[in-house]
């Protein structure tokens, strides 16, 4: 949309600044100390620059070194890291190797920083106003008085897009929502009147609708204040939607660089192309099983049916009791052999619903039927038998596997519990069979979870869930903690398994983009209430509810989708 050239230059004070970019990193190499005299490179000779009024994105998956790179640029590296080679220059001033004292003059004043997690990035025991005032005070050229500081801080909060700034000024961080906290942090970053803002995954911890608003606001600031912005993100869709220029980072190196259109049109790098292909927005329809066997029974019978489920949490507070209605008269029907996605932002009640379905939580009222049998009011042992048919896969594969169990013990656990495959050979054979089903082999049998990558762990978790031959899998954000490329592989695996075993999925997610890849039906929830339900086709094409439309509009990667379609 906006090219760097068309942005008005109102902040240029001196002629040199026209030539030198706001930030130029040249051949930067950063190592981490991994032993006594051992150093492991995290960034290997990366170069980048950001010009005035430019919106540049640095994209990479976890472990790519993108965060280390910008920590280096801001002089915020942990003590275990060192800059081995290269230079960092702000407007031509080389700041490489500057100590904290000197860097303090650059930080805030020249470069503002928006951190990743708004929930931990504000001092919990200081009022917002004080925290913004500090940023003003540290960076003003000549000492001002308290009233001026306050005015500047309020102004900064307003610029960050907060309404009712006077009230926010007096509040503590825990009294604000995630989005408001992130705006407060933007205000902190702006308070020093910097020329460039570096944002490290500023919206990863936020809901998708809030993410959109915050990112749009950043774009607006770029235009309004004429500052440069360097956005670091794992989400290629987010980057492509708003940037002028994109850099892709892998294993500490910049592997791709160019204007958005060029990267979209003809990415030179293999990894970039893979990332683009893995982006959910690239895919219009549902993934096909690799075997080619068509799934989708057109009019399948209901395998799971939940009726008017209600769950209220009682909050103990002073005086009167407060209640939180987590789930309000919710219905859900899952057809046999299909995937039903439950979509919503945090607090939508989708996780409560999932844990009621599998029996981790009990509902206050309502019924759950599985294949015609009613679960409500069943005896413990009967419930246990039925629950064999319904298994659960957790969001975080790093916490859902006992760190002391080997892979074979983990997968064999349900077999033990139900006294299946009693002989040792039988059990091992079954475990290997399950491992193969999730595309792992025998060599993993004796590994511990800590020796596996995130994707491998999630495969093990799925294998474990399949051990009892369940009919239904409830997947709670099962791919949300994974990198995009790994996420794509797991989704494909799920689709294949569904075709192979005729499984039905309840797929809980906050990511509408993923829904399109795997689901047949979708239920959209907000505040414990179902706002819309229907086939994916119907909901995506003609959403009936305003909130669904809002969610759909917030899916990042509109540009990827366009490029993919063309």
């Amino acid at each position: 949309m906006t090219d760097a050239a068309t942005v008005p230059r109102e902040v240029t004070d001196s002629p040199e600044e026209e030539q030198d970019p706001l930030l130029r990193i040249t051949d930067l190499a950063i190592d981490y100390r991994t032993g006594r005299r051992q150093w492991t490179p995290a960034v290997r000779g990366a170069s980048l620059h950001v010009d005035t009024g430019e919106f540049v994105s640095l994209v990479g998956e976890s472990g790519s070194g993108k965060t280390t790179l910008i920590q280096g640029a801001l002089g915020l590296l942990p003590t275990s890291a060192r800059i081995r080679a290269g230079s960092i220059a702000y407007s031509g001033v080389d700041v490489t190797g500057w100590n904290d004292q000197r860097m303090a003059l650059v930080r805030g004043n020249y470069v503002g920083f928006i951190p990743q997690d708004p929930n931990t990035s504000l001092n919990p025991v200081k009022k917002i106003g004080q925290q913004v005032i500090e940023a003003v005070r540290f960076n003003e050229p000549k000492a001002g008085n308290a009233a001026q500081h306050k005015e500047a801080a309020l102004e900064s909060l307003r610029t960050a897009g907060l309404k009712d700034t006077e009230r926010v000024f007096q509040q503590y961080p825990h009294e604000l929502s995630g989005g408001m906290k992130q705006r407060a942090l933007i205000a902190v970053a702006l308070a020093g009147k910097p020329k460039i803002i570096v944002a490290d995954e500023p919206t990863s911890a936020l809901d998708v609708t809030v993410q959109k608003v915050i990112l749009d606001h950043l774009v607006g600031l770029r235009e309004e204040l004429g500052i440069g912005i360097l956005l670091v993100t794992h989400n290629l869709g987010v980057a492509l939607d708003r940037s002028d220029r994109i850099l892709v980072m892998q294993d500490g190196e910049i592997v791709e660089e160019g204007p958005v259109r060029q990267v979209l049109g003809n990415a030179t790098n293999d990894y970039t192309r893979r990332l683009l292909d893995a982006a959910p927005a690239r895919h219009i329809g549902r993934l096909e099983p690799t075997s080619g066997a068509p799934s989708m029974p057109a009019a399948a019978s209901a395998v799971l049916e939940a009726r008017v489920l209600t769950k209220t949490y009682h909050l103990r507070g002073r005086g009167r009791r407060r209640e939180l209605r987590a789930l309000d008269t919710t219905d859900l029907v899952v057809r046999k052999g299909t995937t039903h996605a439950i979509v919503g932002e945090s607090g939508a009640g989708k996780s409560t619903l999932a844990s009621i379905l599998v029996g981790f939580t009990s509902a206050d009222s309502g019924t759950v039927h599985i294949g015609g049998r009613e679960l409500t009011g069943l005896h413990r042992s009967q419930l246990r038998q039925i629950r064999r048919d319904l298994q659960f896969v957790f969001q975080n594969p790093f916490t859902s596997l006992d760190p002391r169990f080997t892979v074979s013990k983990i997968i064999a656990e349900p077999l033990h519990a139900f006294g299946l495959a009693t002989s040792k050979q039988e059990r091992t054979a079954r475990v290997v069979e399950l491992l193969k089903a999730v595309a792992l082999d025998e060599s993993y049998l004796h590994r511990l979870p800590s020796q596996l990558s995130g994707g491998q762990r999630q495969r093990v978790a799925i294998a474990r869930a399949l051990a009892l031959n369940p009919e239904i899998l409830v997947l709670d954000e099962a791919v949300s903690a994974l990198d995009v490329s790994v996420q794509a592989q797991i989704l494909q695996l799920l689709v294949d398994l569904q075709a192979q075993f005729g499984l039905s999925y309840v797929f809980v997610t906050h990511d509408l983009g993923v829904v399109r890849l795997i689901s047949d039906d979708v239920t959209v929830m907000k505040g414990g209430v179902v706002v819309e339900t229907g086939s994916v086709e119907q909901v995506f094409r003609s959403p009936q509810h305003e909130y669904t439309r809002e969610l759909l509009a917030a899916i990042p990667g509109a540009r990827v989708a366009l490029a993919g379609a063309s």
Partner: protein
Amino acid sequence: MTVELDTPGTSAAPAATAAGEWSGFARSLPKRLSELGQQPILVVSWIIVLVVIGWAIAPDLFTSYSPYDGNTNASFVPPSAEHWFGTDRLGRDLFARSVYGARTTLTATLLAVLVAFGIGTVVGLVAGFAGGFVDTAIMRVVDVFLAIPSLLLAMVVVSVLGYSTHNIALAVGISSIASFARVMRAEVLAVVTQDYVKAAYGLGVGRLGVMVKHVVPNSLSSVIALAALEVGTAVLAVASLGFLGYGAPPPEPEWGLLVAEGRDYVAVHPWASIMPGVALAIVVIATHRISTSFRKDHRR
């Protein structure tokens, strides 16, 4: 934070830090040994502790003097090649008395830690796992035990049971039950909310099975670290009670008592109390160093 790039775990996600916590268990023995080689102080600490355990098991291998009989003509001989720690008023070799004293003190310590660990862990497990009323009731009782400083409680217990090293051990053990119970309960509560415990329930594992297979093994590591720390604390507590005179009667060598015996002559013959005291302090410092390494092992 150590970054282990050789394991695939680190390539994935910021969640790897949570996983890194457990990488300690996956490390192989040679790797552990080579790590040990990089920490000379830890090695020295282990040597000290092993030597002192040797004292307790076979004291006569370490000294040829008797701990009870002395040469009254050679009373208060300063430390020398012949008498490493010097001699006391009765001319007894203080090094020999320290070596033989290791058995008294260490046995008492071991007993104390076993009592505290055994009872405390079970109490904490029951409280944390049962929850509800049982938990509340247990924890209120634990509160009371925590409210009475452990040395004071141990003194009261020993005064009821009678003065002896075994009773000191029991008293010290009883007075530390509460802190074990509290740590175990906190760990159990933390482990119970972990996804893998929920997952086990979902897979049809019963309550007892979950407790035995998942909750206990995963909660124990911090309690074991506490037990290692408690060894040092218990040595101190046992010696302190011995110093105050609640332990074995005088001819018996016991570390706290050795210091107390020398105390009357501290102005003129300082070594008589300082040498055994310093030996005691070194042992406690060594056990602390080792317990810290336990804690680090399971934290990182």
